[in-house]
């Protein structure tokens, strides 16, 4: 590729119709334009001569360039010889209209008590030039700097460790959710199998009728789509009873999957209807379907096509409503999740830095003239195909491999804006820092400025840095050398600045810097990535994120605890149920329960009957063994041995004897209990209660 051709392509790529003015003749020659053809950029630019201050040798790529002073930016300048169109210079009013609202959002512009960060105080040189758009900056520069200085000057966004942590958490949540869903599906699958097995094992002989066998076979199918398909097929075959049943089954399964009901073989349609009480709309439609289904299944209504269509339409409507509810939830979740984590963070004002030394204004300007702007968080190992421009800021810390990737990418035909030197790309372009800084304010190249139609003045801090660049296209320059140059690099182009100062927020607020930057950097881009100090701080994988957040030991311990817990508790083999409280009862509790039963049954007399008979027998055996004694003889013997009154003992014995005639026993429960205790005391005195 010849040098002139490269320059032309460079100009087209950057949208710099102005630059083409210097190379119009060459371009026309190469394009092979015939006389009488429509004027092209080059043709129109032929009349654009160099300004007085322009150094023709540096500005024009060839000696053939013949720019003129009376060049006017016209629409015709937007057309190239080969038919490729490029846009004319941006309207100053439009850029100003975008710029002021952007600046108004920044604290350093509107807050009087804004404290200028210490590391950015060198930008205070621009405060006078910027104060018309940014009134607060002068006050901020006068105020004392905050202590301590910020470690990260330009990047005011989220702490990258926090980003890593958040990403990790999101991954954990996502993986956990997926695992939960898979587990739930497996569980349901197993539950269905269990149910089927149970159904089969519990099938009774009288249930083995066709009527009962049909639902048993249907219980296997739980897939909504297959059930609906089966319903349609049954309806096509004229089996409307099955069609209605399958359509209704599909609805139940759908509601079950949406978490609105829990399908179980022991639940009635009424149970499901009541479970839907928190969604009245669904409940009323469900009840309507149930009425039809039940009148077919249990009533006298014959299954007909009309009935099926009625159920079918309602089922589809209700299932759709259910689906839409779920989709809404999913969409809400997805959008929030994706916005926050899945995509690269957008070039929001916060992300690019809102301090005077940040780049939020630049990012917003680029965003206003491109399809999308993203901060490059990931390491530069591979660049997406849709990216057509990358801006590398001074703070970017890239290694050799990353520069190599950028170099290859530019050579493949893309555009790189370098606000940093001492890197392989700028070295290969032979662009370096000038030994002396500027002593004059940089000015926009005359041919470039000619295309703008209005004077464009730049403002910089005191003694800005200049470049040394051979055979390059100067876009702005000072007395010490160019301050913004463009160079072709392979099939692509590179714009080089000595540092990022020109691109900072406060710089773009000054003079016509923003207008110039918008024309030469921002416009005619599609997808732009901004490479800064944040680049490479993101993690490649959740594991990297965990490592960088120092969470690996914690998570490993948690995992270990979970595994131990799982091993300890073990998996359950059926539906979890509350354990039955089957504590072992003491013997006395069984006796108490038995006594309670007797008491509730008003059977104390019966108890006394049994106990009394046993006690009397024991007493006779122990006190008067071998003798056929009477109660009075027994009482006399007991009175003698215990020292109690014989009449009292006799009363006890008679009460025990009388209880054997339950039909005529009129004593109360309390009296029965008293008699039993008296008998017990007599037994104790006679040798024990056993």
């Amino acid at each position, binding site marked *: 590729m010849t040098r002139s051709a490269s320059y032309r392509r460079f100009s087209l790529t950057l949208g710099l119709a102005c630059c083409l003015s210097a190379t119009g003749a060459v371009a026309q020659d190469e394009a092979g334009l015939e006389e009488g053809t429509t004027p092209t950029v080059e043709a129109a630019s032929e009349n654009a001569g160099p300004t007085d201050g322009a150094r023709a040798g540096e500005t024009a790529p060839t000696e053939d360039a013949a720019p003129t002073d009376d060049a006017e930016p016209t629409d015709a300048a937007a057309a190239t010889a080969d038919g490729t169109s490029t846009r004319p210079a941006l309207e100053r009013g439009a850029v100003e209209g975008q710029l002021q609202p952007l600046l108004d959002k920044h604290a350093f512009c509107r807050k009087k008590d804004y404290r200028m960060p210490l590391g950015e105080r060198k930008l205070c040189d621009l405060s006078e030039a910027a104060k018309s758009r940014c009134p607060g900056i002068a006050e901020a520069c006068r105020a004392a700097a905050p202590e301590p200085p910020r470690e990260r000057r330009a990047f005011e966004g989220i702490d990258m460790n926090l980003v890593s942590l958040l990403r990790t958490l999101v991954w954990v949540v996502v993986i956990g959710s997926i695992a939960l869903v898979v587990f739930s599906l497996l569980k349901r699958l197993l539950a269905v199998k269990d149910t089927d097995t149970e159904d089969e094992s519990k099938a009774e002989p009288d249930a083995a009728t066709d009527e009962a066998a049909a*639902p048993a076979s249907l219980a296997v199918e739980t897939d909504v789509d297959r059930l609906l398909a089966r319903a349609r097929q049954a309806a096509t075959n004229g089996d409307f009873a099955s069609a209605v*049943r399958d359509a*209704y089954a599909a609805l139940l399964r759908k509601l079950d999957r949406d978490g609105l009901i829990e399908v179980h073989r022991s639940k009635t349609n009424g*149970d499901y209807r009541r479970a839907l009480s928190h969604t009245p709309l669904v409940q009323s439609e469900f009840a309507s379907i149930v009425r039809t289904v039940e009148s077919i299944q*249990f009533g006298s209504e014959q299954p007909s096509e009309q009935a099926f269509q009625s159920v079918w339409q309602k089922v589809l409507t209700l299932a759709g409503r259910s689906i839409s509810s779920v989709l809404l939830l999913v969409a809400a979740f997805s959008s929030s999740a994706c916005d926050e984590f899945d995509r690269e963070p957008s070039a929001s004002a916060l992300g690019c830095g809102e301090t005077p030394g940040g780049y939020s204004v630049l990012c917003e300007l680029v965003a206003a003239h491109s399809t999308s702007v993203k901060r490059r968080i990931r390491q530069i190992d591979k660049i997406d195909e849709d990216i057509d421009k990358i801006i590398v800021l001074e703070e970017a810390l890239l290694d050799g491999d990353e520069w190599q990737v950028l170099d290859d990418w530019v050579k493949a035909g893309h555009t790189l804006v370098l606000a940093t030197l001492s890197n392989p790309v700028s070295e290969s372009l032979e662009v370096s820092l000038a030994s002396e800084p500027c002593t004059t304010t940089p000015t926009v190249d005359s041919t470039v400025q000619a295309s703008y139609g209005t004077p464009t003045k730049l403002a910089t801090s005191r003694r800005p840095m200049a470049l040394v660049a051979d055979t390059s296209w100067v876009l702005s320059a000072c007395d010490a050398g160019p301050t913004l140059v463009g160079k072709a690099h392979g099939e692509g182009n590179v714009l080089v600045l000595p540092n990022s100062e020109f691109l900072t927020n406060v710089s773009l607020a000054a003079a016509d810097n923003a207008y110039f930057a918008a024309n030469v950097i921002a416009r005619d881009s599609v997808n732009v990535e901004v490479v800064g100090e944040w680049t490479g701080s993101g993690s490649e994988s959740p594991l990297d994120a965990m490592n960088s957040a120092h969470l690996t030991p914690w998570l490993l311990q948690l995992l270990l605890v979970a595994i131990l817990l799982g091993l300890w508790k073990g998996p359950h083999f059926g539906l979890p149920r509350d354990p039955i409280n089957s504590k072992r009862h003491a013997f006395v509790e069984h006796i108490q329960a038995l006594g309670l039963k007797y008491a509730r049954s008003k059977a104390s007399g019966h108890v006394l009957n049994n106990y009394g008979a046993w006690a009397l027998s024991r007493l006779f055996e122990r006190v008067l063994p071998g003798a056929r004694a009477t109660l009075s003889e027994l009482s006399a013997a007991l009175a003698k041995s215990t020292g109690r009154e014989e009449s009292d003992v006799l009363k006890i014995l008679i009460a025990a004897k009388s209880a054997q005639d339950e039909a005529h026993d009129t004593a109360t429960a309390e009296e029965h209990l008293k008699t039993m205790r008296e008998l017990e005391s007599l037994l104790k005195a006679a040798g024990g209660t056993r």
Partner: protein
Amino acid sequence: MNAQLFSQGFQAAVAEVSRALVGQRELVEQVLIAVLARGHVLIEGVPGLGKTLLVRTLAHVLGAGFRRIQFTPDLMPTDVTGGNIFDQKRGEFVFNAGPVFTQLLLADEINRAPAKTQSSLLEAMQDRSVTADGETRQLPEPFFVIATQNPVESQGTYPLPEAQLDRFLMKLNVTHPSREVEEQVLANYLNGFDPSKLELLGLRRVLDVPALLEMQAGLGSVRVERGILSYITDLVARTRAHPSVFLGASPRASISLLQSARARAMSEGRDFVIPDDVKVFAPAVLRHRLILHPDAELENITPDNCIDSILREAKVPQTSA
């Protein structure tokens, strides 16, 4: 009578009774369904929950004859059924009909009388007749017993014999009303509501005895699928096999469950029974027919717990999913 008319009459009666008995609509519906199913109801609850008011209001709204027996420990069987008394003027025994000869009998606090007196209602409840001195006399139609009882844990009560309990179609538990309902009750009292003067409330008589009999007869036309019958027998059979139950429900329970389900179906305007009709009334129909093992009682397992577990296990017929 078709299901729609049945449902309209039912709903009108429930609404009217609910005017007097605030916040107990479900109880009112259940009692009315039992009445329409030709069943007797046992209502259990602590005193002061409006059990007596419910029955009195129901009698008024249904236009049925109403008598009340306050059961006490010294109540004799003849105080319930009546008996032959020697008429000295005529020189012969004359039957003096007891309060049981009515259409709606309120047996208030039935468990305060001993079993002997409680059992005097057995024949009346089962055969709707009373036998005295070898002569059987039919009770008027319709005849319902609505008995109330305090929880058996209360002092001075006698548990009903199993045979007596089995005669009741349902046993309904009345619990304390919610705070809002209780506030509404108080507001009604402030507005002059007097439970002893129901006529002041302007309650309408929405049904009469012929209509009631027609509604009862209408239950015969309710369609019951074989699957429903299997479901009922399955539930009842499971009560007999339940590990906590010593004595399960009888075949009479199955019939009661079936009749209750039919009445509920008609009350909702259906001429066919669905499984939900059975399931909803299973606790009320079965709870008083189960006798638990002592161990289960010690573990605080109640009949309702057993029925719940049975309902969770039994497969509902025609489950499409």
